[in-house]
């Protein structure tokens, strides 16, 4: 009897946004957390590193000579670009040759793409209600537009290349409700750092994060990209927002493809519900060496934390809005003599827009080195690697030991505004204090 009641209950209870999307892609009326399903995918993504391994695996699968749909695969050269060395060039070529062989529609070479997670939404390759898997952990970024998106390793990506489906365990969801208006010079990045700090780096492992609340409703699409991007920093499988008018308009400007906007049921079952009031939130900083070691800026700046490098860019904060914030703070000024500032616009399109608006000139005049779009500096690959004993403040998403280079270096994570303020003083600085001081 108890089992029967439980069965009836489960079948009457509503579904979360993630469950709704996964049920439809599995051809089922309903799914529940913990269930194993085969879901059809709308897009499979890989970069030159994950693709190189995935292509090797695919070659070993009997009967798999072709990808399932050449228009539903995106291949982006972005990790060691422009090729750092002959070995990196070899991987880039391997992916380029594969794209040609399979006639892949969405192949982005250097100079025509940028960082995968900035490129795909910008090119209209992500729409609400879709299921997207990618050979990169920050694939979860696309949840900003109401898609289910998750990162996987190369063998899973090879399987998705040929099958057009993936096996998934339906994740339980954590609902986070944000209320209040973000203060002056407090941004989506600060809010997400605070969230990762609250959850902990394994606080959402195997879970979906569903973002809600009035703060989110007011937030720009780029702010939502920043927040969805770092869901993985709490261990989450995906982070997802409801696609509102703003998100739908963003997608419709970029594609004519039809899509289904899903909505969580009012009686959906959440594993946890967390409320975060943002009204008094200060700028936040994740201190070395984990992304959940998050502190308010006033605690961090109590002592002078001198930095050697400031990095602006990445799939977290490489958007035009981010560069504009930095340019506004640096305009007409010079960065401190002890620091170098490296800027990587997130994509070729962001780079061009920043150039047209004069943002790049402002940054260069202040003393910043502006690089071509890519992931290199963020993961210690190239184009901004830290040496022994060096310290950086960065707009990126991870600060594990050795993340940006030497295992004896340190990385602090913060918003573009906090990083820009720190560039002017050469030490970690509250952008609000800097503004008051009129520096």
């Amino acid at each position, binding site marked *: 009897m108890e089992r029967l009641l439980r069965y009836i209950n489960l079948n009457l209870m509503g579904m979360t946004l993630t469950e709704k999307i996964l049920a439809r892609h599995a051809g089922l009326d309903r799914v529940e957390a913990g269930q194993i399903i085969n879901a059809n995918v709308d897009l499979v993504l890989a970069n030159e590193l994950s693709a190189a391994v995935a292509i090797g695996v695919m070659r070993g699968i009997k009967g798999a000579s072709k990808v399932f749909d050449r228009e539903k695969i995106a291949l982006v050269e972005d990790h060691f670009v422009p090729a750092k*060395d002959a070995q990196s060039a070899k991987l880039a070529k391997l992916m380029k040759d594969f794209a040609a062989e399979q006639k892949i529609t969405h192949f982005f070479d250097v100079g025509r793409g940028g960082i995968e997670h900035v490129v795909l939404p910008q090119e209209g390759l992500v729409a609400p209600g879709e299921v997207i898997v990618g050979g990169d952990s920050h694939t979860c970024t696309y949840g900003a537009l109401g898609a289910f998106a998750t990162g996987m390793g190369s*063998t899973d990506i090879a399987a998705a290349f040929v099958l057009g489906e993936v096996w998934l365990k339906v994740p339980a969801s954590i609902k986070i409700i944000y209320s209040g208006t973000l203060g002056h010079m407090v941004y989506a990045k600060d809010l997400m750092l605070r969230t990762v700090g609250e959850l902990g780096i394994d606080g959402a492992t195997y879970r979906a994060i569903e973002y809600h609340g009035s703060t989110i409703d007011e937030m720009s699409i780029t702010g939502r990209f920043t927040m969805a991007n770092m869901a993985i920093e709490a261990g989450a499988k995906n982070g997802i927002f409801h696609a509102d008018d703003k998100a739908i308009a963003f997608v419709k400007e970029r594609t004519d493809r039809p899509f289904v906007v899903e909505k969580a049921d009012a009686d959906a079952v959440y594993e946890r519900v967390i409320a975060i009031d943002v009204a008094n939130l200060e700028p936040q900083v994740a201190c070395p060496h984990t992304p959940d070691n998050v502190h308010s800026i006033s605690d961090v700046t109590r002592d002078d934390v001198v930095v050697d490098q400031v990095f602006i860019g990445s799939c977290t904060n490489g958007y035009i809005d981010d560069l504009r914030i930095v340019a506004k703070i640096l305009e007409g000024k010079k960065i401190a003599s002890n620091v170098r500032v490296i800027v990587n616009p997130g994509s070729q399109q962001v780079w061009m827009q920043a150039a047209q608006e004069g943002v790049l000139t402002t940054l260069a005049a202040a003393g910043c080195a502006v690089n071509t779009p890519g992931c290199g500096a963020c993961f210690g690959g190239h184009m901004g690697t830290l040496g022994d004993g060096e310290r950086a403040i960065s707009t990126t998403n991870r600060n594990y030991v050795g993340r940006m280079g030497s295992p004896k270096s340190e990385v602090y994570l913060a918003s573009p505004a906090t990083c820009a303020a720190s560039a002017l003083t050469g030490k970690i600085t509250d952008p609000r204090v800097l503004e008051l001081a009129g520096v």
Partner: protein
Amino acid sequence: MLHGKAHKYGKNVDTDVIIPGKYCNIIDPAELGKHALEGLDPNYTTKMKSGDIIVADTNFGCGSSREVAPIAIKGSGTSAVIAKSFARIFYRNALNIGLPIFESAEAVDGIDDGDEIEVFPESGVIRNITKGTEYKSAEFPPFMRELIDAGGLVPYVERRLAAKV
């Protein structure tokens, strides 16, 4: 049966320390293996012997989706990883590439660095020979067990492909 000495580490051993980003353009398992755990313990590959076992606390393999992380561990000759828990993507990757992984909080607490360990993958039994204790690792969920028994994801994909034609 897997047999070797335990090398014990803490919680949140992330993929950046398992195989630092600068090596992620390498795809040869043996070459990757030379740098396994380099960001956490630069001496790991010199002090370990083939068959040795990594024992770690919670959330092993968090961070990046780089499949070269479990490939590097396997390439170093490490025979298994025992942890209190694994990060999601690493867990899938390890099973997909055939790196044996076992979850057991009791075993991790009962094993010290340098202990001699035996693991029986079929039954999930973990023996600490040095201390004379025995543990049982968490069972794989039925679907994962099926995948493992089928020989991994590739044979599974081949079956799905054949069924689709």
